[in-house]
């Protein structure tokens, strides 16, 4: 088996709040993510899903443990090296984090303008092409505040994919979207993954919906990561925590069945 592209080894992270209480968010997380695979990280709010993403991106340093990206520990890297590693990443943040003083076009063009030596014309061509791919033609001069939630997510995707990343991180891709729109986002994401072959890490509450996409599902609970290789594994797990979680996220499906009977 080939080497994992991202590997978390015994990662700890805690935060201290203003009144001095310490919150231990991650307590020894171990995780392997292999190239080309789709990993879904689930778990209730406040269990450290977003923290895990930030650690993988090097936006935070772990208190202890290693975060290996292609075998190199990013927790001990200098800024220059870290920038090189980050060139492999494409990220869509929870709120997409569009640059709100820039238009859609400027947002999507920014990574190319800053990180490549392409001419203005070439950039224009590429950006317009990908705006078309994401169904955003005609919206290039709008500002992020003028877009709907679904369009905004697509802008985030388009921006993140400009530099053809090896790894895509997607934090809560469907928060604030209706079921039809969230399916649309997942389909788009899957389609582009087929084309580009990136490794995907998705943080999501939509566990049942996203099972079809996932090669492995990671459930975060009390600072630990539990890894499942298939949706059956997770549904039939004996672990009371996982049972709770499955019931919580898919509860309504079973309930409606009961009601029908």
């Amino acid at each position, binding site marked *: 088996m080939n080497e994992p592209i991202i590997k978390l080894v015994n990662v700890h992270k805690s935060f201290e709040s*203003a009144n001095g209480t310490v919150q231990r968010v991650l307590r020894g997380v171990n995780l392997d993510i292999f190239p080309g695979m789709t990993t879904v990280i689930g778990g209730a709010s406040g269990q450290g899903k977003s923290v895990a993403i930030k650690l993988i*991106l090097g*936006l935070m340093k772990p208190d202890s443990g290693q975060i290996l990206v292609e075998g190199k520990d990013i927790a001990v890297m200098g800024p220059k090296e870290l920038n090189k590693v*980050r060139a492999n990443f494409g990220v869509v*943040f929870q*709120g997409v*984090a569009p640059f709100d003083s820039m238009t859609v076009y400027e947002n999507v063009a920014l990574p190319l303008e800053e*990180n490549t030596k392409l001419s203005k014309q070439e950039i224009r061509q590429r950006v317009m092409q990908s705006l078309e791919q994401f169904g955003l033609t005609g919206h290039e001069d709008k500002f992020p505040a003028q877009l709907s939630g679904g369009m905004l997510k697509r802008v985030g995707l388009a921006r993140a994919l400009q*530099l053809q990343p090896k790894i895509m991180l997607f934090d809560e891709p469907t928060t604030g979207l209706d079921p039809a729109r969230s399916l649309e986002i997942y389909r788009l994401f899957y389609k582009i993954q087929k084309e580009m072959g990136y490794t995907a890490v998705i943080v999501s509450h939509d566990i049942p919906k996203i099972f079809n996409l996932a090669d492995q599902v990671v459930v975060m609970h009390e600072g630990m990561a539990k890894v499942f290789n298939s949706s059956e594994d997770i549904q039939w797990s004996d672990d009371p925590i996982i049972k709770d979680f499955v019931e919580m996220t898919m509860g309504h499906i079973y309930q409606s069945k009961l009601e029908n009977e």
Partner: protein
Amino acid sequence: MQIIFKLIESLGRNTLYYINDLGGMGLFLLQSLRGIFRRPFRFQALLKEIKGIGAHSFVVIFFTAAFTGMVLGVQGYYTLSKFGSEGLLGSAVALSLIRELGPVLTALMITGRAGSAMCAELGIMRMTQQVDALECMSIDPFRFLITPKFIATLIAVPLLTLMFDVVGILGGYLSGVQLLGVNPGAFFSGMEQSVVNKDINLGIIKSFVFAVIIVWICTGRGFLLLKGRSGFGAGSVSRATTQAVVLSSITVLLWDYLLTALLL
């Protein structure tokens, strides 16, 4: 006993917090200065910031200067006429404006008008993860966000200070000479004799120092939003902005005293 322990504990924690905070701000200043020398330089963004910080502050500075000068004219006349030396009004107005009021009031007005805006803008960018997004695209947020504001403030504040001085003196002329009847020749010749290069230099040095203080504190408080104690959510941006304006204003006044005392 419990209370004493709690007191010592919170004293220690607060001391650590403030030292940490000061260190963070110091580091921020160093990184901002380093960001200035990073390429490519964002010339368009610099022009936009100069417009926002400088050109858009023109009206505020104009009126502040005009009324300050007019008040100085009236007050100076009132005091000086007690000694029968109204002829000195010109030099009194010019000296107080060039040495003190021009740099200080310009700095305070810019803090309120542009500094608060800078802080809120960066605070919102931090909160909505736009700063993280920049870092993840391997774009240095200091070069990208802070440098244009830094240089724009260094250009705008001294220029606005000079404008403040000129408009203020004309305001003093309006109230002292036109309304209260001081001799215009005495007004300007007294000014010419008493204002020396040293006074003007002091004013310019002050305006540069104040510019650094404003842009450092206001961008820093916004940029380091989640590392401070301002909490989370929309309230945190408003708290950070208030903090930035208060801190920057007090620091400007403190340094005004220090510079005046040192360079007298």
